[in-house]
């Protein structure tokens, strides 16, 4: 009797010590998340945030450490993105930054990440090279990869000349530069370069100029519902050629706004958007289904956009890399951040919802051609193109 009491006491003491050791040893891994939850690109930021929350639901612990998510809104303003990144790094001592919707904001955060030596996992294309990208990776396919898939499709379809209309911002510039590069090597002539602002209410002038150049196909370097404008204007003016878009367009609201004018629109996207149409041996098939399930559990709705999946992929990259960080390192320290960065850049063949990621130092991009599929909008549904 006595011994059993002593045993209980010993066990509880051991447990208590064990707990203390555990709670002292396993500090939480802090993830700072920045997204445009308001402002003109909130149509990307809101799904981004939903995707990251689904990620938290999917994997909230790695190597015995809890992952803590701290979320801030940058109101679609790059200077706020940078300020928030500093706030997260200096005040909250986050170990890794995730963000943000919109290329300019992500580039601003990448500069802060490099300066403060904090890893950044972004989900928009980053145009960084060499030393600049020492602390930043992205789960998004680089624009050049997406656009070259589009140009390849154009070449197969016999397109000889293409007109371009895009946003008058860095996304529009990036898409145009990629088109120019791929088209040149494919022998396709770029005959027009027109721009408009996301908030514009008419592109009649720009579309007229494109029509005057009589291109076989038109590519829109746009994103979200504001991207519907050129297709509506082209349809109104009776344009009969092929229409292409970028992966920024793939969301249900775009389909709703563009309506019949975007019938036959061809766009590149990640495999997750057509997960149920993928062949069974596609690397993204399984994880995409798991993402859908996690999203369904968190938000009680089916994911219908590509942005939530990019953010979910960022979460997978972090969870995968954190599992490979030496357990003796403590989150919240410079050593941990450096080790996490090294682990992220050592990511090999990680199957994510948008294909497969392989990171290596010197480039922020991890996606390859397995991350791109071409889809066609047919009666409001995206159909996988062979």
């Amino acid at each position, binding site marked *: 009797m006595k011994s059993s009491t002593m045993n209980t006491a010993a066990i509880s003491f051991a447990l208590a010590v064990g707990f203390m050791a555990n709670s002292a040893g396993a500090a939480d891994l802090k993830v700072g998340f920045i997204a445009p939850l308001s402002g003109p690109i909130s149509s990307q930021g809101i799904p981004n945030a939903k995707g990251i929350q689904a990620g938290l639901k999917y994997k909230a612990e790695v190597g015995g450490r809890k992952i803590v998510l701290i979320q801030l809104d940058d109101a679609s303003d790059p200077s706020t993105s940078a300020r928030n990144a500093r706030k997260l790094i200096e005040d909250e001592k986050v170990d890794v930054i995730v963000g943000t919707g919109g290329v300019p904001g992500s580039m601003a955060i990448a500069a802060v990440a490099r300066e403060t030596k904090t890893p950044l996992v972004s989900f928009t294309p980053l145009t960084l090279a060499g030393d600049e990208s020492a602390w930043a990776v992205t789960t998004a396919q680089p624009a050049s990869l997406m656009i070259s898939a589009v140009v390849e499709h154009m070449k197969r379809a016999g397109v000889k000349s293409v007109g371009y209309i895009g946003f008058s911002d860095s996304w529009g510039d990036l898409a145009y530069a990629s088109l120019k590069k791929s088209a040149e090597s494919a022998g396709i002539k770029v005959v027009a370069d027109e721009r408009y602002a996301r908030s514009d209410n008419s592109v009649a002038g720009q579309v007229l100029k494109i029509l005057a150049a009589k291109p076989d196909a038109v590519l829109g370097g746009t994103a979200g*519902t504001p991207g519907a404008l050129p297709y509506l204007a082209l349809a109104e003016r009776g344009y009969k050629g092929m229409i292409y878009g970028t992966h920024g367009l793939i969301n249900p609201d775009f389909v709703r706004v563009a309506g019949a004018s975007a019938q036959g629109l061809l766009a590149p996207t990640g495999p997750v958007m057509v997960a149920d149409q993928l062949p069974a041996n596609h690397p993204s098939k399984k994880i995409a289904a798991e993402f859908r399930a996690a999203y369904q559990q968190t938000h009680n709705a089916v994911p219908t956009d590509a942005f939530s999946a990019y953010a979910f992929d960022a979460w997978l990259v972090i969870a995968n890399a954190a599992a490979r960080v030496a357990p003796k390192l403590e989150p919240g320290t410079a050593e941990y951040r450096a080790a996490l960065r090294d682990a992220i850049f050592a990511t090999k063949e990680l199957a994510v919802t948008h294909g497969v990621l392989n990171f290596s130092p010197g480039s922020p991009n991890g996606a390859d051609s397995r991350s791109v599929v071409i889809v066609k909008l047919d009666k409001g549904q995206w159909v996988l193109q062979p």
Partner: protein
Amino acid sequence: MTWDVALILSIDGLASGAIYLLAGLGLVLVFSVTRVIFVPFGDIAAFTALSLAAFEAQKVPPTVGLVGTLAVLAAVAEVISLVRKRDFSRIPAAVAWWGLLPGAICLLAWLVAARDLPVGVAICVSVMLAVPIAPLIARVALQPIADASALVLLIASLVLHFLLSGLGLVFFGPEGARTQPLLAGGISIANGFSISAQVILMMGSAAVLCVLFFLAFERTVAGKALRATAVNRVGARLVGIRPTRTALLAYGCASLLAGLIGILISPVTTMYYDSGLIIGLKAFVAAIIGGLSSYPLTAVGALAVGLLESFASFWSGALKDVIVFSLLIPVLMLRSHWATHSEEETEEIDQ
């Protein structure tokens, strides 16, 4: 540029000019009567468009909740001010006007929503929902500071814009909406060139509304009271025109105009929760051309802004807005050169 391109651009420019014209009229009307540059004007237009889209999607537009909340706030504000004045006999009337009337519109909207409505009914209800917004927010936020300086009023109105556009994001979400065209088809002129019926409707409505405004100002007592207040607030008060009443009327008219803009524009452009600001700003350029007082000059300015915008988008899409807003600089220089500086300062102090 060929002639047919110029023609298409002109038509496009005149169509957006018609919208800026209506918005410019609303801005000038509110400014001349109340000295408020009514920045939330565009937001009301966007809300109307998005309400109509919600009706079309057979949903209850969130505007119902906005108007309902504003009505409660306005009724409470009115009752408190009456209690302070110990004027208890007017409380029932105030509650009826400020609370129950907008409430009735909300109830109507709520009852007809979520079913397959004829387009006409959906449009009427959307506009009816829009009309109380400006008077109600003015009652809650602007009337208590009606005698402050024009700068304070401008800042208050800017704050209202940010408040409304923030609420718009919560209500309608970040994505835009488009409504069904009111008129299909078009008129075909020359080879391969046609004007869509919707554009003709926009221009026609703007013209008809201008004539109606002119008649109302020239022929009705209420219109004359508005003009009198605009010309001289103190003088208007001396002859028995109540500034609060005329301000309310001006806000009501502006809200109605904003509602009509929302209905006219939403079939041709995608409307977002924050699309209103840019329409308001371009109309503001037009209103500045009109010196924030002259209706005919504002109309000319609005059409000029529309045309300039359309041609600028052809020359350089990226610099379109820069070109349009740069128009302000020469206009302001010319106006300040010719303006006779009035005794504006003294007018602001005593009232």
